[in-house]
Structure formats: C-alpha cells, structure tokens
C-alpha cells in the first residue's frame, strides 16, 4: 500500500469491507456495533468509577487489587481487557506507568480505545527507558525518591493504575471523586489533583 493519504486509505478500507461483507465475514451492523460501543459508550469514565469506589471503600480496594476482573464485574464492567485486568496502586513511594512496547495493548473495557499518542513509537520506545523524561513531557515531575515502575503489557494481562487520592477530598462523594479521575492518571502519565487546592 504505497499511497498513504487518508482518502486513499478510506476507499481501500471501503473496498475491503465490501468484499468481506459479500463473503459473510463481517456485516456493517456488526462493525457499527463495535464503533458505537467504543466511541460512544465505553471510555475512561468506567475506570474512574472503579478508582473512586476503591478510594471510598477499603474492602472494595482489597478485592480490586487482588482480583480485578471480579471487582470490576461488581460494577457491571466486562469486555475486552476486563477479564485479564490487573490494577496496580500508586503509593507515596511507587508511581506506576502502563505501556505496550510490542503493539498497543490497553484495557479497552475500562478506558475505551487508547489515545493516539499511546500507540506512537515515541511513547512506546521511550517510556520504558526514560520514564522521568517522558512524564515531564506530560507535565508530571515526580520526586527523586519515588520509584517509577513501568508495566510493559506484553501478555494478555491488561494493566490499569489506581492513582493516589488527592489530599483535601475527604468531603467529596464517590461520584464527585470519579469526576476528578483522568484517563492519563489511570495510564500513569498523570496524577489526580484536587481542583479546590
């Protein structure tokens, strides 16, 4: 495929789709069921609900860290990546970051489709080797005594970070807490901050 302009690729995709429909491999409705699900219904709000629940409920947090697939199923969350989910907790001493150096594995069921930068060679190549430099590009500078743990998703396990709860949020309800949790905080390229402070 030498021509790489978007118009050409769009028409090539259309050609392949039409052939696969005729051969009974796919259908337009099935394709649209997938694109609707991941562009409309499934996104980082799911992961944020899980994080907020773990912040307010210690028993839930323990279940989440020991058996994430079962714990997210309690909140009605399943699908690609949920069945092999592992949640890694940030602490005052350890900051976790998720990557897939070989392709772009990502917990779709919890965070939706990955952002475009997550799939670039720049992120995949550099965050394993120079995590501090890469996090600085995201505006995140961590204290020198914090160990950065970069999780390379090379198997079917899908990693998600449980960020630290920001100080001064004791009075917030679970739903308000969930609204503070960003996608990047669950990838590990960000942290959750308290907007009131």
């Amino acid at each position, binding site marked *: 495929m030498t021509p790489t302009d978007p118009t050409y690729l*769009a028409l090539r995709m259309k*050609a392949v789709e039409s052939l696969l429909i005729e051969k009974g491999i796919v259908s337009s409705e099935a394709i649209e069921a997938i694109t609707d699900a991941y562009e409309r219904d499934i996104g980082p709000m799911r992961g944020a609900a899980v994080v907020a629940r773990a912040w307010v409920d210690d028993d839930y947090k323990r279940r989440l860290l020991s058996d994430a697939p079962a714990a997210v199923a309690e909140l009605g969350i*399943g699908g690609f990546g949920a*069945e092999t989910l592992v949640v890694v907790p940030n602490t005052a001493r350890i900051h976790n970051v998720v990557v897939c150096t070989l392709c772009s594995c990502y917990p779709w069921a919890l965070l939706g489709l990955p952002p475009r*930068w997550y799939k670039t060679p720049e992120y995949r190549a550099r965050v394993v080797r*120079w995590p501090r430099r890469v996090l600085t590009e995201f505006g995140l500078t961590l204290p*020198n005594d914090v160990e950065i743990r*970069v999780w*390379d998703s*090379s198997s079917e396990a899908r990693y998600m970070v449980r960020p630290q709860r920001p100080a001064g949020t004791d009075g917030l309800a679970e739903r308000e807490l969930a609204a503070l949790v960003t996608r990047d905080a669950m990838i590990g390229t960000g942290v959750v901050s308290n907007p009131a402070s």
Partner: protein
Amino acid sequence: MAEMPTMFKRNGAHDVGGMAGLGPVPMAIDDAVGHPAWESRALGATVAAVTTGMLVPPTQRAVIEALHPVVYLSMGYYERWLYALERCAITAGVVTADEIEARVADTLANPDAPMPVHHRPEILDAVKGLIAHGVPRGPERLGQPPRFAPGDIVRTKRIELRGPGRPHTRMPGYAQARVGVVEMVHRPMLLEDTLIASGQTEFEYVYAVRLRTRDVWADAEDRDTVIVDLWESYLEKDALPASNPQDVPQQDVSQ
C-alpha cells in the same frame, strides 16, 4: 555473570522498547483529531473478523511484525490493521490479492458506490458478546503448578527468531538475557510463539518480572524498574543465592 550490552536482541521494527533517536511524545495529535471514520471501520471489521474466526490476534500481530521495518514505522496504526485484515483474509482463503486490488480499483473509480447489505444476525450477536464479555480465558490452572513464585530470581532467555520455527514471540528484545524478580504470577495464557510457528495451542503460566531499568540501559535512572510479562518457557531459575530476593534489582547482580 555480567551481561554484555551487545546481547540486546531486537526482533523487528515493532519491538521498539528503548529505541533511541525518537522525539517527544506527540500528544497534540490526540484528542483534537479523534479517529477518522475509516480507522473506526478498520477496528470494527477486525473485531468482527475475530468473531468469525478469520483473524486471530496473534496472527494479526505476526503479520504486522513481518512488515519491512521502514514500512512498519511509516504506516499509521490502523493502516497496519487494514494491511493485516487483508493478509489474514487472503491466508484464510476468503479472498485473493487480485480480488482485493480489483475491488480497490473499482472503489477508486466509483467512490460513492453503495455498500452491499447482508444482514448477518449471528455476527452481530457474536460481536455484542465480545463487547460485553471479552474473549474466553484459558484454563485457570495447568496439570503442573507454576514453576516460579513471587520473589523468585529468574534469568530471561534469548529468543532466536531466525532459527527454524519461531517467527513470532511476545518477549521484547530488551528483556532478553536479564536477571529479574518475579513480581506476580498470572493465569496460564496461550503461548503465541508455538501457535504462529506450528499451529499448536499450548498454555503456559505467565509471570510479571521486574527488571532494574539501569540493568537494561546504562543511561536509565538508578531507582526505576520495568515490569514485563513473560511466559514460563522464556525463563530459567537463576543460580544466585536469594538472601533477599525482593531487593535484588536494587543491587548490582553482576558483581
């Protein structure tokens, strides 16, 4: 004991972990742009093709990894997916390369031609099942227990892909020939290496193995670590005495 840096073994252009010479992460291309419609359809068609068995993810990966390195790095992410969709359709005998090129020529000449309509409720149902429940997991345990436990010191092997019968692996180049500590034991997973090499379905325990980043790259920060998931056959027991295995990546194990 000392590992020579020259033992670093990269398996292909996809195996980018640690690659130097790339610029800052291009974050600006992200949310403002979103996915063009054709990329969404490439994603949707790929997932639908998984439900009908035409494409399995390990094969999709192997097809993409076989791309010439220059081509791999110059293609967009979903461009690779479209390429793999075509290759998998051809390999499965669903279409021929000539059929695809002929249809592409027709579509370029007549871009507004209507899409054929085939209602296939069974495909739609299978796709909805995948969205809701994901893919079936492998066995919960194997006939034998896991060979390693959390805290064990392990040595990672080298994988020779150019040797006979191993065109694909999930072991990154940077993780080969290292000493690390088992951080967690995952459930058994399909070993993609043998599936691609011989079509055999084998399951192995998988371990999250913690490496000291500085042991892999001399210019890395001393206190950072990288944790990589490795199948049991990628690992062997290390002969080092394990006085305090949790601390080993913090020490220089080559001394």
